[in-house]
């Protein structure tokens, strides 16, 4: 069991993070990197968080994935602060003995991080105007597909 989570302003090194998971002895490592989309006159994205709660929630989400898929390791890194188009926002990565578990757990982690980790996105336009991004029903339904009954 090797879970690593962080809520941080600093960028992260995807290669180093994946290398850590590759060293755990499994047969598959899967990852998802979320990046600030360009276009639409967007100057930057501002991500607000409750840092202590974010770490607690990311740990809980990660532990859930580790248990459900018997992962060898998982990594959940989420940035906050002002991020320019092209900047990395989030990294989710998993290591498992087989690819299906790694890929499924990776999808689960990003779906739950979107709806259960306390981060709020605000768009900052080229003209300086700001707009908080509303939660999307698609994100809720993506997260709900992993609920157990």
């Amino acid at each position, binding site marked *: 069991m090797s879970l690593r989570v962080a809520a941080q302003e600093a960028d992260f090194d995807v290669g180093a993070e994946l290398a850590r998971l590759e060293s755990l002895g499994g047969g598959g490592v899967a990852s998802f990197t*979320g990046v600030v989309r360009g276009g639409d006159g967007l100057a930057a994205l501002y*991500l*607000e*968080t*409750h840092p*202590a*709660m974010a770490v*607690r*929630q990311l740990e809980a989400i990660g532990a859930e994935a580790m248990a459900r898929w018997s992962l060898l390791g998982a990594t959940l890194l*989420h940035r906050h602060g002002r991020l320019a188009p092209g900047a990395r*926002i*989030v990294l989710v990565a998993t290591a498992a003995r087989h690819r299906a578990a790694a890929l499924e757990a990776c999808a689960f982690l*990003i779906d739950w*991080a*979107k*709806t*259960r*980790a*306390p*981060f*709020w*996105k*605000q768009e900052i336009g080229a003209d300086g105007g700001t707009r*908080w*991004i*509303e*939660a*999307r029903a698609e*994100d809720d339904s993506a997260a709900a597909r992993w609920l157990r009954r």
Partner: protein
Amino acid sequence: MTLTILYFAWVREKIGRDGEALDVPAGIMDVAGVVGWLASRGGGYAEALGDLARLRYALDQAFVGPDAPLDGARELAIFPPVTGG
């Protein structure tokens, strides 16, 4: 009972501060009670907290519903639905 109340995103902007420590009046037992009491202060509080359907809450950093009992909690966070990832 002193409760640290934290505000995030547009809730923070409308209220004009990111948090405060307040003495919650006796008789207020749950999250919705605190939110209603804050909203009754008017101004930015009323504007930010008037529509419960747009709000979410965490007590001591765990998500809860509006009917959650305060039960000695030390921190209440009030915010819009999260949009991370």
